[in-house]
Each structure stands twice: as C-alpha cells, then as structure tokens.
C-alpha cells in the first residue's frame, strides 16, 4: 500500500505539472509539429560542443555562472554537452535537447525507457542511492550495468557537474532468425 499511495502521489504530481507533450505548441522539437529537425546530432557530432539550453516546460535555464554540465553520449557515440541548472533531472534535460530518450511513463519511475549508464564509477557513487522502485525498474532494463540509473531519478547537483552518461541501445537487435522457428 505504501508503494501504491506513493505511485498515486507521483501520478498526481505529474498531472499537476503543465504537460510538455499534449499542447501542439510544445516547444520540444521531438514533437511532431515543430519544424523538422535542426540537423540533430550532425552539427555537433564528434566535436565537443556546448549546446545552449532552450526553454522548456520542465527545466530551468541556468543562471550565468551557475551552469552545471552534463554530457550525454548517444547510441552513435556522439557527445552532447549541455549546460543545466541544479535540480533538473536527466530525462527532462535529454528531452529538452532532442536526445533520443523516451520516458514512456512521463518520468514517474514506472518504466525503464530513460535508462542511462554513468560512465564514471566515482561519479556514480556521488549520487544518492537509487530507491527500491528505481532498482525494480532497472532490473527490467536492457543492457543493465553496475552504474545504470533511470534518467528521471537523477537530479543534477553541484557534485555531479561534469557528469557523463551513455544512452544504451535499449534492446538487443532482433534478428530475423529469432523468429525463424515460429
């Protein structure tokens, strides 16, 4: 029951937050309505670059001088370094920056689609321990590692400045042969 009421509380919190995805005017360029991609991944590929933060419902633009940096390494091994504010979680940051991270449950720790892998063990140890329910979801994640976390549960702090996380390829690639015997 504790779990249940907590779930409800979370769901409620979600309901109360202005939804980023419903409104057609939502600024996320992953939305189907926005102008087509501004060359995702390409302009910034390989080269280390700092992407200025764009306004988005869930994240706070960092105050000058107070920026924290987080680097996402996508499935093509391209690095995206983003300046963020303390308190922003990795799922919101990734979505605001058009990185491929789905967050099917809306960041309520009820799925594993925002799985990230922290590349540096020492950095992983600086994070507060994951709660049981995060671990329960991670247990179902594809490509689970010792330093896996759910992006929605990792909020940026000063201690995490310079954090680097990898976006795992979410599933093994299905081969036609997997279905051959059926």
């Amino acid at each position, binding site marked *: 029951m504790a779990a249940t009421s907590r779930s*409800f509380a979370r769901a409620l919190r979600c309901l109360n937050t202005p939804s980023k995805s419903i409104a057609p005017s939502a600024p996320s360029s992953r939305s189907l309505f926005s102008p087509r991609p501004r060359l995702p991944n*390409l302009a910034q590929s390989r080269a280390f670059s700092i992407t200025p933060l764009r306004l988005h419902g869930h994240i706070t633009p960092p105050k000058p001088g107070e920026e924290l940096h987080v680097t996402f390494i996508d499935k093509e091994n391209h690095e995206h370094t983003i300046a963020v504010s303390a308190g922003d979680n990795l799922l919101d940051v990734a979505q605001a920056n058009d990185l491929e991270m789905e967050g099917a449950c809306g960041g309520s720790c009820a799925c594993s689609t925002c799985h990230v892998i922290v590349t540096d063990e020492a950095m992983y140890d600086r994070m507060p321990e994951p709660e049981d*329910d995060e671990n329960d979801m991670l247990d179902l994640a594809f490509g689970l590692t010792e330093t896996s976390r759910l992006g929605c549960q990792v909020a940026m702090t000063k201690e995490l400045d310079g954090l680097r996380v990898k976006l795992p390829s979410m599933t093994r690639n299905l081969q036609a042969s997997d279905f051959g015997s059926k």
Partner: protein
Amino acid sequence: MNAAARSRLCRSSAFRCRAVQASLERFYSTARNGRPFRMAVVGSGPAGFYTAYRVMSKIEKAKVDMYEALPVPFGLVRFGVAPDHPEVKNCQDKFEEVASSPDFTFVGNTAVGNLGAHFDGCTVPLPSLMRNYDAVVFAYGAARDKKLGIPGESDLKGIYSAREFVGWYNGLPEFADLAPDLTRGDEAVIVGQGNVALDIARMLLENVDVLRKSDITESAIETLLQSRIKRVHIVGRRGPMQAAFTIKEVRELMKLQHVGYHPVDMSLMPPEISKLPRARRRLMEILVKGSTAKVDGAAKSWSLDFCLSPTEFIGDASGNLSRTVFEKTSLSDPFDTASRVSATGEKIDMASAVAFRSIGYKSVALPGFTEAGISFDDRTGVIRNDGLGRAFGDNQVPLAGVYCAGWVKRGPTGVIASTMEDAFSTGDAIASDWVSDVRFASDGHSRGLEGVKGDIDTSRCNVISWNDWHKIDEAEKTRGQAIGKEREKFTTTANMLKVAA
C-alpha cells in the same frame, strides 16, 4: 529544410556536407517523388501508437489513419494496465500528441473485417484497406486467451479467465456483465504466475478504499466490497527461479497492509542467493524476506504455490467450482531459469471458491487474412514476420505493404517499454522500405480514408473521431470527479456513443 539553408551548411565543409545530405535523406525520406505515404494502423494500443509515432517522425509526408474497433483508444493501456498503476498510463500523453497531428486520423468504433451481426460497431473490409493505403500495420494485440484444456474448465461456474476479469474491472464493454462471484468462500486460486496473475491477486487482497480512488469501475468496487476472499493461491508449474512475474508487482503485494505472505518453499531457492545475477538475486531476496505484515493475525494472506500443474476443476452439485486438483511437478534443475519441468503423478487438492486462469493471451487472425495471403501462425498466435515487422505471405516472403507490431507480432509478453521498442523496429522497417523503393500495397494509388469511406458499413452507428473521443474522455472525467475518482469509465459502447453524439 530549404535548399538555401542546406547550401549554407554545405559551405562549411565538403565532408560534413555529404554526411548532412545522407542524413537528411534518411530523415526526410521524401522518396516516391514526394507523394505522401499513407498508412493504416489497425489497433490503437501502444503498439499502434508507437509505430505511428515512429513512422510520422521518420517519413516527412506520412499520413496515418488508425482504425479501432472500440469507440475509445489506447487498448491495454486503458483496459489492461491495473487501475492502481496510473503512472504506467502516462504514455497516453505521447499518444495524445501523435493523435493531435493534422496528419493523423482516428477511425474509432470501426472494426477491420466483418465481425458478424452481433458486433454493434462499424466494419470495414480488409481488402478496402489494402487497396487504399501504401502500408497496413496490424497492431491489434491479443484478444483471446489460452486455455488449460482440463475437465471442468468450461462448464463450472466460478472460473474466470484473467482477460475477462481484468477487462471487467477495467470497464471493457465485452465483459461489463461478467459479475464475478467472490462470495462463495474464502479461497481463490489463480493459475499462472505472470504479472497479470499478480495484478488479479492485488485486486483481491488490496484494501478497497485504496482502489476506490483509481479509475476501476464502480461496479467492480461494489463486487470487491462484497468479496469474502481471504486466501489467495498463485499457482505455477515451475519454481521461483523460473517465474515470469517481475519484482515491482511482487513488492507491491509484500507491502499490502494487513496482508500476509506465506513463506516460500526454500528447497526451490538456490543456496547462495547473493551470488545470483542482479535481477534474479533481488527478486529471490524479496521472496525470502516476505511481507511486511505477518500471516498470523493478518486479515488476508497469499502464497506463491510452485511446482503444481492443474489437472481438473471439481464442482459441487449445483455446478459451482469447489476444488482444483493439481499434479505436483518436478524441476530437472530448480536453480536453472530454463529448467525442464515434468509431472510426478502425485496429486493434491485445493479448496477453490473461485479460480482464475492467467496463463497468457493469444492473438487470432482477422477475417480476410487468408484471402489477403497473410500468413498467421495459429499455434503461437502471431502474424509470421521477419522479426522487424514485415509480415510474411506464403514461403516466408514479405508481403508488399503489410506490417505488424506489438503482441500480434511477437506474442503476448512484455511491458509497455518492450512494445515500444518493438513498435519502433516496425516503424524503422517501414521508413527504410519507403526510401528503398520496396513495393508497397496500393502501387501508388493510395487515397487513404477518402478511398475507404464508402466501404465502411455505418448502418448500425457512426465512426468515432478523435474529437468524439475527447467528448467521451471529458464525460468520463466529469463522472469520476463527482465521486472523487480520476475517471469513471463508460462500460457499454452505447453509452460511449451517446456522449459522443
């Protein structure tokens, strides 16, 4: 992106320019002389919506029409996900975003294939879709369930399939009148040990006042309030190391207030749980640790009964279920997750006031598959496909423009995240076929819904649009608000249609 912008980019570096253009082609997919790509999706659950989403993000001029047999969308997100898991339903936000695109049309209350006179919605024949779309994606899920095939299963009162029971408490019109009887005794038997079985157990054991706030139907609340069930057996043929349930669902049961868990049979547990791989280790640890509440003094209790295979349901003189007979099984290696299981011949008997069969769902072919040459595997209940969603005709050759996603593609297992990945792989296959000049269904004459309209049988009712669904949605929320719930669902299509009219 316009040509000027592209050339500006190109000036920056010749090398990058090639990469940019190659990528642009992948992204915009303005293949086929820029004509729109018209796709029909059959089914509006996660598989259908995630496939539509992927295709619409990858093919610039994609027009998607989604056909749904019911007046309301979202499939198992609405009718399968447990009412006390509202956070799992948040994926609807994404579906709503997809549906509000001007390139998306919801064709609700419209079944594909003639479902016969008993069906009170609209129908559209499959050949009409095949004629009018470049691609048809089957994402209609699994609408039947597997049977045990044992005596008593189909003639005794008090045996329900998980699909019926789950559909009933979630307001699925098909089972609105199920009226399960939970008053004949205190023992319930659930056959099967997947997460659906655990959902059912939670519904039977949870304090009704907690469920009351969810979108579970009021009639389900009434029935659960009268329930006399105090002891729930969740029975499986295999052991804890082979079980299909996942840890979140087990943990929820362990934490229920005033509900005790009978200890697990330790002989089935590996001697050194701490050395197991992480996920299995955590699952076994929680099974050993047990529930917060003690069985002694608890109002209700439950157990996972391993290594039992049901052989017969036995009824009383008036045809009500009274006992379930099981044969004990033996595992070749209890600690091996893929252990073989065999029967021992030894029988045991369990008092059963009610029993639930929760051994899996099953997809069936749609009317018209044979004529369309779509190869359906009746044994496994899937459309034969290349693993990426290209549906096979005879001889394992992909059919032009026919795809599948979700449970009808890979079988009825996995959580929404698995269906999402699976749907994305189908979407990727479609997008890559579109740019590679693979042959599609309508040979360049696709007209989409315009062409189909005349073929929809609307003699009994009207097609439901996305706006109509919003009316139903609003009405359900208003009904819910009045009684302190998030939503009170309509449980008959007639009532849904009335609000939409």
